[in-house]
């Protein structure tokens, strides 16, 4: 269950001040399709949190309208509207005087669900976010770690199965290791739940990682660019966006794409025991100067230089002199590049789940991908499709 969220020329000005006052929003028009994650990102004061809070009417726009599922939210009763939208904030905002179970049951309680239905839902949600109802359900928030509290915050927002979720720097208050774990868990959850999510962060890396769509905002509340992470990294719309995404945007694009979405270069292989004369003829004809020795199951053993392949006799394992990194299809291009830079032969061998050779990828091909613009990229359906 999800709904499209549409901003139509939404402006928020604060009385007696120029439009550039922190938190102001100027003529924002974006549409977040149902089931997608849209990350609002920008420096502090760019109006990203204001934009978010206008969706559940904690802040009312000066002009323009916001639609959820085609319906103008201004026509909704405000508490009804808020109960139909999941809300997660950086400080989590759990109620310290209520147990974890009671906290998660907040919106169901406001909606008047009976106790049995609430308890069932609470237990399911505690489990969903990776905690144990029997252990954590009756604890108070102060008895949980920061990461556990964040999980409970997400569970509470999901309690009444809202079609839309608003998340304001939801992982900003935890340390980087916990944050990464929470991000990954969240992406896994979202893959099943497919909520429409508006997500605020000031961290461009988080935006690129979490967003199907990214809205980059600049101070003054103006939308600087709206697109997929790959589009924004490949073709920044302005100097501001280019600076904001950082000089390493090529590298960031590599982190978005996995090896499986590249066209692999075929490897010239020969099995142990094969006739070396025949193998030598094939490798001499190839521009790449190394023969890949494999075992009976097509698993790589090592490289043999063109000139080291004997003119006759059988190939043996001892002829292989060097090996290079094994990559699988799920390795990101960034990780692949890092492995290749350290390797003796800067060619990665891509293997399948059983370890059999699928093809080769070179460091040059990866860096060339990072330089290409999005329209030329080989990744079908944008970079996020390859991440999921």
């Amino acid at each position: 269950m999800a709904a499209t969220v549409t901003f139509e020329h939404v402006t928020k000005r604060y009385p007696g001040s120029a439009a550039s006052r922190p938190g102001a929003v100027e003529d924002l028009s974006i549409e977040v399709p149902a089931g997608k994650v849209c990350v609002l990102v920008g420096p502090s004061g760019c109006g990203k949190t204001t934009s978010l809070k206008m969706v559940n009417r904690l802040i009312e726009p000066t002009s323009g309208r916001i639609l959820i599922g085609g319906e103008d939210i201004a026509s909704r009763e405000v508490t009804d509207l808020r109960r139909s939208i999941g809300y997660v904030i950086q400080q989590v905002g759990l109620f310290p005087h209520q147990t974890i179970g009671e906290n998660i049951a907040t919106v169901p309680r406001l909606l008047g669900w009976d106790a049995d239905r609430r308890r069932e839902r609470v237990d399911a949600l505690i489990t969903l976010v990776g905690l144990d109802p029997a252990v954590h359900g009756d604890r108070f928030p102060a008895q949980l770690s920061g990461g556990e509290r964040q999980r409970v915050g997400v569970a509470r927002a999901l309690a009444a199965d809202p079609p839309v979720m608003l998340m304001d720097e939801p992982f900003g208050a935890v340390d980087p290791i916990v944050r990464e774990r929470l991000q990954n868990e969240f992406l896994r959850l979202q893959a099943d739940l497919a909520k429409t999510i508006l997500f605020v962060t000031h961290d461009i890396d988080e935006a690129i990682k979490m967003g199907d769509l990214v809205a980059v905002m600049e101070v003054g509340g103006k939308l600087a660019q709206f697109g997929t992470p790959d589009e924004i990294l490949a073709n920044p719309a302005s100097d501001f966006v280019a600076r904001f995404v950082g000089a390493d945007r090529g590298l960031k694009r590599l982190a978005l794409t996995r090896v499986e979405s590249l066209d692999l270069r075929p490897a010239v292989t020969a099995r142990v025991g094969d006739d070396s004369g025949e193998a030598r003829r094939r490798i001499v004809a190839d521009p790449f100067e190394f023969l890949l020795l494999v075992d009976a199951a097509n698993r790589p053993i090592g490289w043999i230089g063109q000139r080291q392949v004997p003119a006759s006799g059988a190939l043996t394992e001892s002829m292989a002199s060097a090996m290079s990194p094994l990559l699988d299809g799920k390795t990101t291009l960034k990780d692949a590049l890092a492995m290749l830079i350290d390797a003796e032969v800067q060619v990665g061998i891509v293997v399948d789940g059983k370890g059999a050779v699928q093809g080769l990828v070179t460091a040059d091909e990866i860096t060339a991908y990072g330089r290409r613009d999005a329209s030329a990229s080989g990744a079908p359906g944008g970079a996020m499709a390859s991440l999921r």
Partner: protein
Amino acid sequence: MIRWDVIQGNLPLIGTKFLEHLALTVVAVVGGLVISGIAVVLIRDRPRIVALVTGFFSIVYTIPSLALLAFLVPLTHLSFATAEIALVGYTLFILTRNLLAGLASVPRDALEAADGMGYGRTRRLWQVEVPLALPLIVAGIRIATVTTIGLVMVTALIGFGGLGQVMLRGYNFRNDTLVLVGFVLTVALGLLADLGLGWLGRAITPWSRARAG
């Protein structure tokens, strides 16, 4: 010097006056709580009016109790009302200040979460703000109660006073035993109220002692 026969002979009086002391205190604290509660809910979003009202209550608080009674008697005579007006008046400053501090101590993020999830104003007040303000509210009630138990003595001068009456009688009849009984029971009442409310406060806020681990 303690004469047990005096205690025995005055047992009905001592019992009645003890209960009267308790009643005067409870009415004063509950009345003060209702008045300051309503005042705080009405004015808390307007800092200027808050300053004005708490300023007024603090002036009342500084008036010597004898002077206040002397001022009230011509208006409301030697009545229960006179005694309670004075007693309630002294609780207002303490209770108002602690109610405001209690509400101000509610974490902002909990309020934002409550608003964002669709709490109405009234529901937010009773289900989120008041429970979270309880540690400071109960602390205020403790101070107000102990203070009032002491002040009730003074209303003996207008014919009330609970255990104050017992002491006054002992003083008038040069009966040291009665003076001592009044004194000891008042102190005991104060201590019990303090301990009891402290226990109650902890019992209704189990979350405030919850810590990780």
